[in-house]
């Protein structure tokens, strides 16, 4: 007997009952699945929890990505800062040198102090009384002779000589920078230890002494203290007409190039 013959041999009521029982089994299982508090808890609450966990996991991935990105950006900014700190140090060092060169920094070192005083001698008949006073021209000559003798910084009565300093007569007093000075004039010069020897060997200085001290009694004295102090220029360094010109070397450099041999 084949399988088909065996199925055909089953009475039709058994087939009907089998199909009915299959439907019943399906219904019982569906009923069981949808019934009871414990069953409902595990089946209806599990799904949102899984969904939440999945979302939180995705958020965590995004947060980790943000952290890595931020650390990378912070690292590159910090590297930039280290670079600019070096730039600031270099600029400050150049600025200090420029200020020293411009006379904006007080200096101390070897040097001499010359003093020029008006004459005590009576004015000879027919002579010019102004010749018996220390004039701007006398001060300028002394300053020029000091530069020639190798002075590196000069001040008169506390006024620093700068690239823009003029020395002019204003009545009986002398205008230097924006200060009115009067006798006695103390000229402080920072320079080599033999500055006075060099100065007194200069024909220009000898001429000045002869023309002013010996002829009119202008009193010139000097001192060589262990060290001299030259004050800083206290005026403005902002120029109104001059602008930086393009430099052939391409701008400020820390070095000034080869220095000229000292005059004198």
């Amino acid at each position, binding site marked *: 007997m084949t399988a088909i013959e065996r199925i055909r041999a089953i009475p039709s009521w058994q087939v009907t009952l089998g199909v009915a029982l299959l439907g019943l089994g399906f219904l019982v299982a569906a009923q069981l699945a949808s019934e009871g508090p414990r069953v409902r808890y595990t089946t209806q609450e599990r799904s949102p929890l899984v969904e939440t966990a999945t979302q939180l996991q995705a958020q965590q991935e995004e*947060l980790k990505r943000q952290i890595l990105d*931020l650390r990378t950006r912070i690292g590159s900014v910090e590297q930039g800062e280290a670079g600019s700190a070096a730039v600031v140090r270099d600029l400050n060092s150049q600025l200090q040198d420029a200020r020293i060169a411009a006379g904006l920094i007080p200096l101390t070192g070897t040097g001499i102090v010359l003093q020029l005083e008006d004459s005590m001698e009576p004015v000879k008949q027919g002579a010019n009384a102004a010749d018996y006073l220390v004039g701007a021209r006398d001060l300028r000559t002394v300053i020029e002779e000091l530069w020639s003798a190798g002075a590196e910084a000069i001040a008169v009565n506390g006024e620093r000589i700068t690239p823009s300093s003029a020395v002019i007569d204003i009545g009986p007093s002398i205008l230097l920078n924006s200060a009115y000075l009067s006798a006695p004039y103390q000229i402080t010069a920072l320079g080599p230890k033999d500055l006075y020897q060099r100065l007194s060997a200069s024909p220009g200085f000898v001429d000045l002494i002869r023309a002013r001290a010996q002829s009119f009694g202008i009193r010139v004295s000097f001192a060589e203290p262990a060290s001299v102090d030259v004050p800083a220029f206290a005026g403005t360094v902002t120029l109104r007409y001059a602008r930086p010109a393009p430099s052939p070397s391409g701008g400020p450099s820390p070095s000034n190039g080869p220095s000229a041999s000292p005059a004198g």
Partner: protein
Amino acid sequence: MTAVAFALGVLVVVQLRTQAGGAAFAGLSSQDLTVLVANLNARNDQLRAEVATLDSELATLGSNQQRGDASIDELRADLRRVRLYAGMDPATGPGLSIVVRGPIDGPGVEDLVNELRNAGAEAIAIDGVRLVPGVVAIGGRGAVTLANEALDDPFEVVAIGAPDKLTGSLTRSGGLIAQLAATQPEVVVEVTPTDDLLVPGTNRDLIPTDGRPRL
């Protein structure tokens, strides 16, 4: 047969329900899932705090960098200003070109320079030599040296400043040119106001070797 059919129906339904759960956490019990969600929440809060910290660190660094850039710009501007004043850099601007002919003496040249400075000259050069402290013209008539170099005849003085003011101070009656004409009549001074002069920077080292900054 009937039992088989019943069991088959039950299995079909159970399978359908299980597949609806999906995802990686399907194998976890509800209790485990609850703990996992709580852990994830706590961990994500920590990560958010870290992001906030890094965010503010980056913002601070950014503003510091901007401040740093600003102070670098200020330093550069200050450096240009001081170097220009000191005569370390070339300068350009309006002013005077003065040509001097004849046997002038050192004090005559210095008087001219002093007069220009008094009239507000901001940068002066003689035959390409920038006048800075230490550079002086000395010598007798026709034998003037500037920074140890003999001065040519004629030589040119260029001075940056207000051209009218500079011209006025030199050419006024009793002014420098009049004085020179009286004391050194063979010297001829020719003054030309110019809009655009170039005064070179000095090549001297202006840092003293006999002194040091006083604190």
